[in-house]
């Protein structure tokens, strides 16, 4: 099975992949922007800023966001901090299990350029090489205000149809896959139940 076939297993709306935005797509985008379910992949220090963002003081649910327990139901994947090479493999599995359209938010300087771990042998430097990041939150670590601001920005981007990371991933899958393989060795999604 070629790489192209593997990604095509998942059914993508053909018209979603176009760059022109039709009327129905605009309506769809409004719904998608107003209701974001997130999967917080709590890898690094940034994770401790999520509980205050979720609870009474900052109240993430005002934006229609809520935590989801499984990648199948989630729309946004939050990568909260440094990614060691071992964790990267799990993040890739998680991202590939999510349903289209999906968005990825990177937290803190570690996902941008490696942060204080930039010369470590076990930590990847740029998340963008491996997965398409829609939005970064700057800071080491970002405050809850910054996180809320990011979510609001992401909402606006989705409503306008500008959060296109997942399209980039489908279209440039070879490039991403090459990078993934270079860092990790072989990448595959293990499917124990339907072999």
């Amino acid at each position, binding site marked *: 099975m070629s790489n192209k076939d593997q990604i095509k*297993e*998942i*059914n*993508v*709306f053909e018209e979603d992949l176009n760059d022109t935005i039709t009327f129905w797509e605009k309506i*769809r985008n409004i*719904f*998608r922007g*107003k*209701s974001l379910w997130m999967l917080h992949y709590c890898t690094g220090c940034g994770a401790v800023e999520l509980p205050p963002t979720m*609870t*009474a003081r900052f*109240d993430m*649910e*005002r*934006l*229609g966001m809520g*935590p*989801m*327990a*499984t*990648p*199948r*139901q989630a*729309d946004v994947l939050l990568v909260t901090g440094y990614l060691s090479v071992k964790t990267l493999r799990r993040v890739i599995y998680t991202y590939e299990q*999510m*349903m*289209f*359209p999906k968005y990825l938010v990177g937290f803190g300087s570690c996902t941008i350029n490696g942060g204080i771990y930039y010369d470590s042998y076990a930590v990847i430097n740029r998340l963008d090489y491996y997965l398409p990041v829609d939005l970064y939150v700057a800071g080491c670590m970002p405050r809850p205000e910054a996180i809320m601001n990011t979510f609001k920005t992401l909402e606006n981007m989705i409503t306008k149809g500008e959060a296109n990371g997942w399209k980039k991933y489908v279209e440039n899958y070879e490039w991403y896959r090459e990078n993934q393989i270079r860092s990790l060795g072989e990448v595959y999604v293990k499917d124990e*139940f*339907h072999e």
Partner: protein
Amino acid sequence: MSYLIAFSIIIIGFLWQVSLDGVQRKVTAKVHRRVGPPWYQAFMDIFKTLSKSSISHGFIYDFGVMMALGGTIATLMFLPFGNIVAFEGLDNFFVIVYLLAVGSLGMAMSASGSGNAWAGIGIMRALTQMLAYEVPFMIVVFGMIHAYGTSSLSELAHVQQMNGILGWHIFTMPLGAIVAFISLLGMLTKVPFDTPIAPAEIASGPMVEYGGKHFGMLILQHEFATLVEVGLFVNLFLGGGNLLEYLIKYFLVYTLVTLIYSVSARFRVENVVTYFYRVPIILSLVQTAIVIFTGLGVNV
């Protein structure tokens, strides 16, 4: 004509229940001293999930979802909605309990078709919990049916209205009403009885493999099942009433459920079973004995 009525019940029920769901999220937020999402958030969630792509895990997986949704909508058609009854003479308690099981079984079938281990655990828990809450609930309702000699829901609702507010079964059969309310919490799988879903323990249980459209259909199924279950309680214990009264009673019962839900923690699954088989089953047996042997609480 009756099909037209049934269809409008489905539409009205959908709009009512989904907007109420948003309002209840607002209520929960107020209890937590938050602001909470807007009232139409539940609509946004449903339409968003329906607009996403989804993958299939085989025929059983797809078929079970449709069976769950279809079975639950079919159940709703037979429920008296206020004083509106779509199929006159068929609004029978047994029809509704029988059809409601089709929805749960469809979902169980589909989730086991997904092959995920969490789904298997979730289904096991859901069926165990069903075994726990059905028994006390059925004992109470069978006592009621025995006393009146009818199992038609609109007739059972009608006999309660003859003595005014004090004739409602919540006042004449208080023990039974308490048991039925606790069973209702179990039916709705709300905290404290949300062991089958348990996001933090078993990653949403039966829902674990659903995404996109399949998940949207299951949310719809859940909304319709809520309509049926709360509607059963309102008809059996709060005396139904006309459409407006029915909706107000529905709102009050559902808000009470939400208030309990937003401040409590979860039972473990074996605690659920021992809980239901300890207090509620004794209460329900006492209530049924009173109804059958002394006739107390039966309006004539």
